[in-house]
């Protein structure tokens, strides 16, 4: 082991530039990966926020007594699927419409809006089927004029999330493959460049394991260094983007970041293991 570590040091001293470039290449690959991962988790996060606003709105007939409404709100709050119920009076509905619609505020100069009950659903019940079922149940109250729950909107939301997930996974995998190819190539070139040396080591009695170990350690160390560098770069990019966009994006959790570095190390190790194994049989 001590011998193997010395071999790694020798490898670095022998070609410091090449080693540094190897680490940078790994870092850039993981950085690209991280950037896309960040975009993906931010899209997911944004979607979750939008999604949490999925609501069912029951418009209430004009002359309904307030007690009936309060009772209904209490009942609906007990539904296991419901996260939150709210009564919106006609006045506050108008105020909110003005606020939310911004540019179109002038439209409501003289408008009158009906009161409504707004229902938010729990995370697990936001799929189109559940929403439809609950809407039907709410619609059965006699004083409810109309139930709206944006059938299209819910469906579209899910479609976007699916697409985002697919695109994220596909791009992520593509970049992972690129990273493996680059790491593998780096090590393969190192092995090729040292083919003569390896041949000599064999001729004086070095076992395959002895010859392989320094390359594996090399790949591992480079993977770890590359992982940390990529983490730094990603963090930098993310905070630059935050500053540019003016709001706080989500960053990886510590555990996930550690997983990323470990993943880098494993990629480095795997890349070198495959490469070295294949090359050694030839040299």
């Amino acid at each position, binding site marked *: 082991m001590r*011998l193997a570590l010395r071999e790694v040091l*020798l490898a670095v001293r*022998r070609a410091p530039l090449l080693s540094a470039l190897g680490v940078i290449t790994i870092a850039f690959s993981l950085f690209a990966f991280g950037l896309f991962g960040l975009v993906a988790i931010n899209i997911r996060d944004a979607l979750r926020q939008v999604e949490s606003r999925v609501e069912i709105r029951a418009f209430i007939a004009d002359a309904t007594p307030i007690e009936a409404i309060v009772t209904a709100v209490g009942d609906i709050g007990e539904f296991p699927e419901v996260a939150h119920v709210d009564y919106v009076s006609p006045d506050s509905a108008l105020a909110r419409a003005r606020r939310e619609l911004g540019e179109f505020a002038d439209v409501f100069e003289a408008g009158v809006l009906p009161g409504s009950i707004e229902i938010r659903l729990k995370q697990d019940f936001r799929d189109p089927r559940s929403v439809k079922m609950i809407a039907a149940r709410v619609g059965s109250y006699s004083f409810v004029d109309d139930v709206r729950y944006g059938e299209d909107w819910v469906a579209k939301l899910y479609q976007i999330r699916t697409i985002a997930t697919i695109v994220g996974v596909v791009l992520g995998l593509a970049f992972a493959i690129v990273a493996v190819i680059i790491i593998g190539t780096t090590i393969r070139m190192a092995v090729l460049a040292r083919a*003569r*040396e390896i*041949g*000599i*080591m*064999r*001729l*004086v*009695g*070095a*076992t*395959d394991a*002895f010859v392989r170990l320094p390359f594996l350690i090399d790949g591992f160390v480079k993977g770890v260094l590359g992982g940390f560098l990529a983490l730094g770069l990603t963090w930098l990019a993310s905070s630059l983007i935050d500053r540019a966009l003016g709001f706080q994006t989500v960053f990886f959790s510590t555990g996930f970041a550690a997983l990323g570095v470990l993943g880098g190390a494993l990629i480095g190790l795997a890349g070198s293991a495959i490469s070295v194994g294949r090359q050694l049989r030839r040299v």
Partner: protein
Amino acid sequence: MIRLTHVTKEYARTGRALDDVSLHVAKGEFVFLTGPSGSGKSTLLKLIFMEERPTLGEVRVSGINSATLHRGDVAQLRRKLGVVFQDFRLLDDRTAHANVAFALEVTGAAEPSVPAKVSRLLMQVGLASKGLAYPQELSGGEQQRVAIARALVNDPFVLIADEPTGNLDDRATRGVFQLLREINAAGTAVVMATHNLELLRRSEYRTIDMLHGRIVSDTADPSAAERAAARIVEDDETARFPGDAGPKGQTSAAARSRTTA
């Protein structure tokens, strides 16, 4: 110890380098291998340390058989052999000292003992002051002597030396030869390919003379010469092996030198 039985080595592009060679080297023997350039000396040695495998026949070295060889066996075998390569094969990125030490380290030798042993060997080949130089910083003869030191460092039971004095002056040659005799006296078998006829003439060791991939004379087995001569005349017409070393059937240089000496 070392036994080749009806070994033929055929290369795809250059044809037959060894042709039905049988040979036995006993424990502690000293054997010279001679013959013109391209006659198969290096190929024979490569078969002994298992850098090449025979096309036909079988090579046995200290219980390891070329036919039933595992990858791991080769490393084990080579740790017990010492090899001086014709083209030295030093590690370019290590000093002379580190090159010699490396051969000891792969055998798992106790680390504290390594430097002293390496230094002693470098001194014996006359390179005490060049231990910290890299191969490119050494003269041809100095590199050759590093290669010799490396071959001797792990106390091999067989030493294989391919033209170990080609780049050495007379005095260094005699020094190296003396070293080989000493380790041979201590029980190590030595197989040495050489073009240095003076060495052959001066010593009384067994000498094997090769030509066109065949053993044409063996001082330990005088009948080999006649057999070989008969064979060569016999397939002179059909032999496809290039005649770089002169007209077929001619007695080789070493054989002649012994005749005239």
